[in-house]
């Protein structure tokens, strides 16, 4: 029996460390090797998808080995319908992110490749950990490479952005650590068994009240900052604008999902009463985020900032879906996480491509690009449309399911959130119109070259997936249904145990 999950998780990091022994001058070797590593990781993660039984709600591909038995911490990993898609999203996006940095990162290339490979292991570890201790280790470990990616290879204001990113995240994580320990001791005191094992802890029915509320809030703050839920979002535009393209893709595509994943994986099953009690607060913030993010996006002069704020809006939808506590909302959220990773990741990739050519991201510096770079413009259109939730592409499926779920909870809130789809069309199409349509206004744009083979290779898989999810989402939702159903049943059972 091959420990597939561990293999997928640790391959990039281990291979990345091995790259340290490659001489710095062998640029070609470093590039090819790192890309190959991420590709192999992706290929290795495919059996997870095909071997995953969608009708089983429990964890699959589980590995459980003692690690620090005296503490009750174990090396316990596995995937279920929730983490499967996120693991795949990560392994899928990493080669693309690396390929996008192919000719762009020249300075300290070796360190960059090693850092990004370690980052991949950190992120995968977060998604597969089934032990709170292990989870926390990965959660913090992945901060460090991201800090370097922004701080070393970022834009002019990179230090400020990197420090802000790390401090902001740290504030939440420290509180989460306290809550993890509180949970650990409470469970130990109640049962006599001290353990960080998530499936075990999830069975524990905690009495509702202050203790549970505080733990929920501590976990919730850490995740809300990561999501980012309004009003904890201000690190995001800075981090995105300063990060290199590959960093932005990973940040938007995967890192933000850790927040929403955390809510699904920890807050809901561990603190069901508090989750239900705080549901209205979260919806409200989520809906504010949807509309606020869209409005603020509309007036951004910088394309990357526009896309960054649009993430606030999109993830507002995801949060809304998670806290509907019904099948439509949760399945919608999960698929929307993947969608956001693809659409926003692709938007960042394409903004990065144009930045490479023109060294500007200001909308005002462009105009009339269709005439010069038609292929770029056409693919950009597909990605923009997917981001604004055009039916037939991926974004629609997630958004609509979330809204259906929200409508059952509270029609008025759903109506407000639905208005977000109007504003999404406004800011994305307005940006598109100013960049792509019209006459060419700047002579500097006349010399732009259309997509290269490498860029085609990066974009085609994303666009293919965007269309595939839009047309045939069952291929993905089918894997998650049972898990989500079991999660809802668990939350309801635990929450009603005290009534």
């Amino acid at each position: 029996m091959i420990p597939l999950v561990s293999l997928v998780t640790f391959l990039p990091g281990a291979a990345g460390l091995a790259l340290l022994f490659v001489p710095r001058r062998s640029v070609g070797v470093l590039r090819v090797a790192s890309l190959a590593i991420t590709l192999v990781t992706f290929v290795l993660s495919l059996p997870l998808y095909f071997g995953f039984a969608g009708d089983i709600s429990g964890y699959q591909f589980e590995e459980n080995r003692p690690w620090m038995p005296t503490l009750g911490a174990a090396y316990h990993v596995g995937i279920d319908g929730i983490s499967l898609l996120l693991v795949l999203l990560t392994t899928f996006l990493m080669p693309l992110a690396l390929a996008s940095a192919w000719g762009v990162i020249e300075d300290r290339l070796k360190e960059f490749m090693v850092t990004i490979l370690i980052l991949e292991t950190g992120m995968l570890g977060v998604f597969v950990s089934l032990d709170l201790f292990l989870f926390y280790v990965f959660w913090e470990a992945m901060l460090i490479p991201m800090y370097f990616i922004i701080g070393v290879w970022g834009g002019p204001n990179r230090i400020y952005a990197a420090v802000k990113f790390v401090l902001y995240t740290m504030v939440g994580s420290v509180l989460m650590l306290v809550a993890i320990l509180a949970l650990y001791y409470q469970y130990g005191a109640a049962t006599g068994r001290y353990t960080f094992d998530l499936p075990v802890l999830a069975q524990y029915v905690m009495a509702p009240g202050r203790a549970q509320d505080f733990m929920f809030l501590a976990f919730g703050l850490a995740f809300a900052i990561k999501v980012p839920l309004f009003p904890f979002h201000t690190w995001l535009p800075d981090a995105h604008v300063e990060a290199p393209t590959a960093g932005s893709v990973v940040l938007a595509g995967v890192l933000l999902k850790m927040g929403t994943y955390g809510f699904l994986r920890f807050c809901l099953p561990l603190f069901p009463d508090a989750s239900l009690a705080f549901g209205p607060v979260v919806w409200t913030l989520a809906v504010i985020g949807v509309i606020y993010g869209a409005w603020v996006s509309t007036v951004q002069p910088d394309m990357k900032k526009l896309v960054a704020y649009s993430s606030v809006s999109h993830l507002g939808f995801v949060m809304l879906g998670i806290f509907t506590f019904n099948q439509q909302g949760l399945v919608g959220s999960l698929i929307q996480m993947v969608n956001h990773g693809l659409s926003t990741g692709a938007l960042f990739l394409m903004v990065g491509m144009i930045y490479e050519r023109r060294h500007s991201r200001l909308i005002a510096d462009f105009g009339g690009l269709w005439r010069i770079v038609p292929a770029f413009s056409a693919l950009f259109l597909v990605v923009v449309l997917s981001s604004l939730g055009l039916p037939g592409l991926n974004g629609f499926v997630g958004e609509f399911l979330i809204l259906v779920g929200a409508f059952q909870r509270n029609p008025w809130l759903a109506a407000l959130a639905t208005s977000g789809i109007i504003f999404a069309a406004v800011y994305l199409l307005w940006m598109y119109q100013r960049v792509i349509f019209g006459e060419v206004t700047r002579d500097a744009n006349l010399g732009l070259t259309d997509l290269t083979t490498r860029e085609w290779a990066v974009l085609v898989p994303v666009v293919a997936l965007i269309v595939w999810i839009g047309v045939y989402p069952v291929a993905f939702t089918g894997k998650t249904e049972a898990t989500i159903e079991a999660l809802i049943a668990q939350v309801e059972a635990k929450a009603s145990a005290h009534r």
Partner: protein
Amino acid sequence: MSTTVWLIPAFPLVGALLNIFFGGVIGRRAHWIAVPALAGSFLASCVLFANVVPGETLTTTLFAWVVAGDFETSVVAYIDPLTAVMLLVVTGVGALIHLYSVGYMHDDPGYARYFAYMNLFVFSMTMLVLAGNFLLLYVFWEAVGLCSYLLIGFWYTRPAAAQAGKKAFIVNRVGDFGFGLGIMWIWSAMGTLDYDRVFKGAAELPPATATGIALLLFMGACGKSAQLPLHTWLPDAMEGPTPVSALIHAATMVTAGVYMVARSRALFERSPVALEVVAWVGVATALFAATIALIQTDIKRVLAYSTVSQLGYMFTAVGLGAYAAGIFHLVTHAFFKALLFLGAGSVIHGLGGEQDLRKMGGLSSRMVTTTITTTIGALGLAGLPGLAGFFSKDEILAAAFVTGRRGIWALLLLGAFFTAFYTARMLFLAFYSGPRMTREAAHHVHEAPGVMTLPLAVLAVLTVISGVALGIPSEHGTRFARFLAPVFPVHDGGHGGFAALLVLVMAVLVFTAGIALAWVVYMAAPIRADAIGRPKTVVHALLLNAYYVDPLYDRVIVRPLLALSEFLARVFDLRLIDGLVNALGRSVVVWAAGIRHLQTGYTVNYALTMLAGAVAILAFLLSR
């Protein structure tokens, strides 16, 4: 049978994909793919039409699409006579317009792209008509909106075109916002989105719920069919190529709202309030747009406002429960309005891109086929007895009259008078009055090639015969209504006696009066170019500026929202939220700046502090 059904959208889809992916290679030969695709689709529609069994509904499922818990929707087709009629119109008129485009677009650099979009539109539109549940309807509802966006902005280098495309998409999204909520409500109330189950279950809906759902759905229809207050995008959509205006913004897409309301009649009939709203919005739009059309100087804008107005008629009919009359008007309107647009396109083509009525005139001698066919189309629109528009409009007027809605009838009659006037005005100014273009422009005037005039002729024939063939009223409704009878109940009676005669006579009178007035104003004496469309009075200015609705929206909605967004982005987000975050960071720095002085750097101080600490701890331990 089910294979035939899927062939209808499959042909244009394949055509679109081929032209999208291989457009660079195909280039000028794009029509060899696009036009046959439409022809195939039309043939398949004909087969379907011939095989539709009245009174029976066929559904055929392709695959399960969105599934989450008990939320289940499939890609499913729903076929009944209404579907068949709509498909015939979409693919038939679509095929003619594709053929016409071969001539109209022949030297455009985006030839393949144009046909790719057009095929994509026909695919989406046929799927919209075929859709067997509300979610699928919504999908293609937005997809046709996308094609509309792409085709309006087809000449993307023109800022006005790009702007108009975006405006169309966003205004449609406002409608779709309501439509989407309506669909969510349907699912929440009934647990299904499939047509047959929703329509069966509608009877048990509480009236308040039904009203809410119906009004939300109607909001979507208002967006797509350019009804008040979401009509503003359609006149701007004229920035697109003229065949696009003919196909999308006259014959097919804009009528999707009417189709949807008629299709969902089970929901609407549950709520008298909603039907009343539909009818009155229709009346208001019909009059509103007709008055604006009276004075426009751009030939395409006259037609655009006329389309808005005619869509108002259809909605009125549907709101009054005369579904068959509404759909019949939809069909005849598709013929004569497509004809008018194509005629206008031929004029524009002949004049080298000129759309201004002030610079036309006297074309009747130079463009004979165009003049004849366009005149037939115009008379069809104005309601010459015997032509299609006369019968279909008469059906609507009669429905208003016999259901006792004399007020609506009178208003529609007034609208018909306006229609006759502006149609005649357009016709006179373009073709029959003295030429007003420059000598240079006049020299270049030429008739369109055969590939363009053939569709004109076919549509003209359809305009002439479809009324007589399908629309002669009888005791049991028109032939058209009887064909649709399984879908829509036929209102027996009412088509006889004094009432019917009165309606008929009034319609003829109004038609004659409108034409006569236009003759007096524009033909009786030669007219100078600068006298046309000049804002002589306040009323003129009001109409010429389309009641200032666009500036109003700009002032009341767009600009305040933009200002608010600017405030949120520059002040609230950066100063307040981020300011708080940074202030927190700075407060740590300030605090640290205070306590840093404890760190003197003198070893002695550290040693003394250690000593003091040790003594303090010792004292504490000893004192216990």
